[in-house]
């Protein structure tokens, strides 16, 4: 089956129907049926190699399905924040220059227009990194790097924002800041879909969770998805789920047993 460039169902941004993607014969994801609607805030969880990044790339359009159909709303602007580990941080570029990459050059010479300069200054201010605009990217902290890529993605005024492991490697306070920012963007009308390994820190706090193990095992609100049977099918490990102050808490008691502390 090939990708049919038709619009998705009314009221959705992207729709995946029966999508497979293989890298040289090995399926990274298969049989994925998924819709992304405006204003949603979703975590994709799954173990390493479960196809999370592949799913993001399919939604983004940089990968084509080897089977099935991806339908995108015509003219949909998608912002993408890559994993920080994939970036060459020694690259000699400043924060301002990096953010400006998202704006397509409209004139034969590369210098930014006044409007572009203002726009970049505004988005950096909004994300709280205006003071480091002239710094080289390698001089930033992990949280600032994440905000810089967020700023670059926002410059495209996306209706859908995709983030690959946005809180990986960040300390607790920075993680809270980033989540707060994402929540605010979402309230202003940007649909957000992020991948994460962090079940308790992130996934259980978001309105929708997708459990991925090369295919969608389950999706829905945390209270219906964060369950021992679904988690076992997703992660291939027995995890317990406790209720605490109305929140679901995932406990890996097996890990404790393995190291002999519980």
């Amino acid at each position: 089956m090939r990708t049919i460039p038709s619009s998705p169902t009314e009221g959705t941004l992207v729709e995946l129907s029966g999508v497979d993607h293989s890298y040289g014969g090995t399926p990274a994801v298969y049989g994925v049926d998924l819709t992304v609607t405006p204003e949603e805030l979703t975590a994709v969880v799954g173990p390493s190699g479960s196809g999370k990044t592949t799913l993001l790339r399919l939604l983004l359009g940089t990968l084509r399905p080897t089977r099935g159909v991806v339908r995108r709303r015509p003219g949909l602007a998608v912002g993408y924040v890559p994993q920080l580990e994939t970036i060459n941080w020694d690259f000699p570029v400043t924060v301002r220059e990096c953010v400006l990459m998202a704006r397509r050059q409209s004139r034969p010479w590369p210098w930014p227009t006044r409007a572009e300069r203002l726009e970049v200054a505004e988005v950096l201010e909004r994300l709280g990194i205006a003071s480091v605009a002239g710094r080289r990217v390698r001089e930033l902290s992990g949280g600032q790097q994440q905000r810089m890529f967020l700023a670059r993605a926002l410059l495209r005024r996306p209706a859908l924002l995709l983030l690959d492991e946005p809180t990986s490697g960040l300390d607790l306070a920075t993680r809270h800041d980033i989540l707060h920012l994402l929540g605010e963007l979402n309230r202003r009308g940007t649909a957000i879909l992020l991948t994460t390994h962090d079940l308790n820190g992130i996934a259980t706090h978001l309105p929708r969770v997708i459990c991925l193990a090369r295919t969608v095992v389950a999706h829905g609100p945390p209270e219906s998805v964060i369950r021992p049977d679904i988690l076992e099918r997703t992660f291939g490990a027995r995890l317990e789920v406790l209720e605490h102050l109305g929140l679901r808490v995932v406990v890996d008691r097996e890990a404790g047993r393995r190291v002999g502390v519980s």
Partner: protein
Amino acid sequence: MIDPFRFEFFVNGVLVATLAGALCGLTGVFITLRGMSYLGHGLSHSVFGGFAAASLVQVDYYLAAGVWGVASALVINRVARSRGIGSDAAIGVVTTASFALGVALLTVFGSRGPSFDAALFGSIVGVRTLDVVVVAGVLVLAVVAVLTRYRALLFTTFDPEVAAASGIAVGRVDVLLMCVLSLAILATLTIIGVTLVAAALVVPAVVARMLARTFALLLPVAALVGAGTGFVGMNLSYHVDVPSGTTIVLVGAVVFAVVYAGTARYHH
């Protein structure tokens, strides 16, 4: 001592070395940041095959070597991307085969153009006005390409995946850069020589990276460093009677060492 600037070939040589230095500096910024320094080295060897073929089929050196160089660059690009062979292996196969073919052709049929040694190590002798025009033309072309496609070149070099997702035709930008690189090598070859072109591409870019804080500054600084080392190296070549490629690269190496030591102290 006789003033070398009285000789037309020397004036031409200095002009070509200076312009070629700027050209290699500018192109080298993208090549080094993409981890493609080895490609520059390989392509210069590949162009040597075209240089030999030019003598055989009796067409101008620039035409044959130019077509050969661009074709090799595109073949490398295609082989590396399509079959999962990896760019370093693709470069190794395509360019060494091309170089070997060049050596075989020259051994059997001889050269009508620059001598074998001149092609390998660069020569100050016999630089024609045509060479000046060619290198100036390629430099103008490279500057125009970099200015008009600046953001696309920067984005695809820094973060190709997000660049593609933002609607930039990454493949087309790669081909553009490959063409500019091939032409830069071609225009530089007679002065610097096959074996040393890679240094002319890498050294100014690396020196500029130690000096410039922003990417926008990096490009003119690399071009200036390249032009400066080309100018000084070419003059030195005349006075010490050593092949021009060798002196240009040695001057570059000294500049690198000085800037490296200076900036290391500054960073401490």
